[in-house]
């Protein structure tokens, strides 16, 4: 009994600590009076901060959702063949290449941002096509930065992968493409999904790289928020953050109810 109570207390504390920042933002967003700080508890209840969400926040949010999706998909498309080749092929210096693929995690993001900016200007100088301040430029940089997440999860799945299943499929007459499509990829799905999810989340909240690559045409959501808060406190930031939190929670809940998250997490034969 005491053990259960202690467990419940510990779990409750952990959850409270995890959810506290979200609660602070959600409660603070309901204050009508504060214009310079987060008022907890609200001094004047109201939804004024929700009504004053600037249209450019919505534009930036839409851009970031698209950017996160494209980056996660691009990183996955790159990581699948790379990881398959690295775990199964007989190329030399595999470990070194794997370290290289994880290198973006070791480089400070600000350095990455400046490097990409310099690179885009250099490319532009030679080709006339400047990728900074464009969705393409941001997507390339984000894909590079988030690829290690997908690589990491896929490699860990592939290292525990049972090759005999593919061999069985081949013996039973499956073509190499058929095996890849019907056996390999479904078995990689949990790792791929987890890696892509990390990649999306990282891209969605990324500031240091985006701050150098955004401009007058494209500004991702976190950069828009960052720029707003550098000058003064804007209560509508709390409001839109709460909206995003609610949308995220509802989406995950709906996916769980309608699809069941286990379809993504069912490791099956790879276990």
């Amino acid at each position, binding site marked *: 009994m005491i053990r259960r109570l202690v467990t419940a207390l510990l779990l409750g504390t952990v959850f409270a600590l995890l959810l506290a920042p979200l609660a602070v933002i959600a409660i603070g967003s309901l204050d009508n009076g504060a214009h310079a700080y987060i008022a907890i508890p609200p001094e004047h209840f109201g939804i004024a901060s929700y009504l004053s969400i600037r249209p450019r926040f919505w534009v930036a949010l839409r851009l970031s959702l698209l950017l996160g999706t494209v980056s996660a998909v691009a990183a996955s498309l790159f990581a699948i063949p790379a990881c398959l080749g690295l775990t199964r092929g007989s190329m030399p210096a595999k470990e070194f290449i794997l370290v290289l693929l994880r290198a973006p995690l070791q480089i400070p993001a600000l350095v990455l941002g400046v490097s990409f900016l310099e690179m885009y200007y250099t490319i532009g100088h030679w080709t006339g096509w400047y990728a900074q301040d464009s969705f393409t430029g941001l997507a390339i940089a984000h894909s590079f930065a988030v690829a290690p997440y997908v690589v990491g999860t896929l490699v860990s799945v592939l290292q525990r992968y049972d090759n005999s299943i593919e061999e069985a499929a081949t013996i039973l007459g499956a073509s190499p493409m058929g095996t890849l499509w019907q056996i390999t990829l479904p078995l990689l799905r949990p790792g791929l999904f987890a890696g892509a999810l990390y990649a999306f989340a990282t891209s969605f909240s990324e500031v240091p790289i985006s701050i150098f690559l955004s401009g007058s045409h494209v500004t991702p959501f976190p950069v828009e928020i960052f720029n707003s808060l*550098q000058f003064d406190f804007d209560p509508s930031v709390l409001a839109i953050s709460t909206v995003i939190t609610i949308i995220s929670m509802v989406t995950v809940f709906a996916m769980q109810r309608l699809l069941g998250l286990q379809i993504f997490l069912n490791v099956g034969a790879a276990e």
Partner: protein
Amino acid sequence: MRFFLFLLGALCSLAGPVQAGQFDGVTIRIGTFGGKWRDVVEKNVGAAFAKGGGKLEFVLGQPADNLARLIAARGAPPPFDILETLDNLLPALAAGNYLAPIDLAAIPNVAKLDSKLYDTSHIMVWVTEEGIVYNRTVFLEHNIPVPARYADLAAPSLKGHVSLPDINAGGAIPALVGMAHEAGGSEADIAPALALVKRIGAANYWSSSSMLQTGLASKDIWAAAAQAGNVQRLRHQADLAVVFPPVADKVGVLKQGYLVKVAGGSQSRAIEWIMNAFLDMPMQLATFREAGQVPVNSAALEALHDEPGNDFLRLAPQDIAGMYRIDFSKVNETAYVRAWNRTVGP
């Protein structure tokens, strides 16, 4: 005579009230601050420019970030046509040949500025008056004497309630230079200032205005080395006041905001029209009323001086002249950061 009339007419057509279609299809990009400042510029400059058919686009970021963008773009089309920047970055901008000459004849509003505030490479558009901002109510409640010098922030009664600018914050150089002069140093020798920073033992080092304002408004921070504009920005949230400590033979420190024309940009006429609009009365008044910075247009200063409730600022020309202007030829920012990291950093 006819020539002068022609010249006057030409100037009016260049920089007077915008005419419909005057800037049809012209897009000007300005590198400036985000948040409320962008809104102020959009409302008072961008909207007027749009009436003439032009479009003002914003590249947002701190001046140092925008300088980094400019450096990365050297030899390529610049990321913006106009840059709003700070006094400490002007030497780097000039040394890197990033500036294009400004046609002052196309900016009639400079006539309302002190001639020291502009030349063909830059035009000052606002200043901030840097000193010590404190919470009047809290000081009264705790019977704490009003600080007169930076050293007063080291008082035991303020322990845990003082905020100083982080070395990367916009207010860092004015605060450090002010403290240096007070403690026997100068722009060339900030060691005494760093010793004072260490002695004050700040509760935190603010890195953005919003961080400072949150602390001041929530009463976690009772006093801070910061600009007077915070009093205006938090007018309805906190009972703040400001004092300007003696600095050399002056009081307080001025931080200056400039517009510069970026080399490699096009549409010179539109650029100068926008620079002129920054100095127009509506924008200059909004600079203070909506953003807390002090305008430079003499007519705007006069109007604000006569307004009740603005007496916390030094708005009379002789009062502004009595504030310390930093000699940036003696400022070595890299050395400042190194010294800060050695002395104050973690």
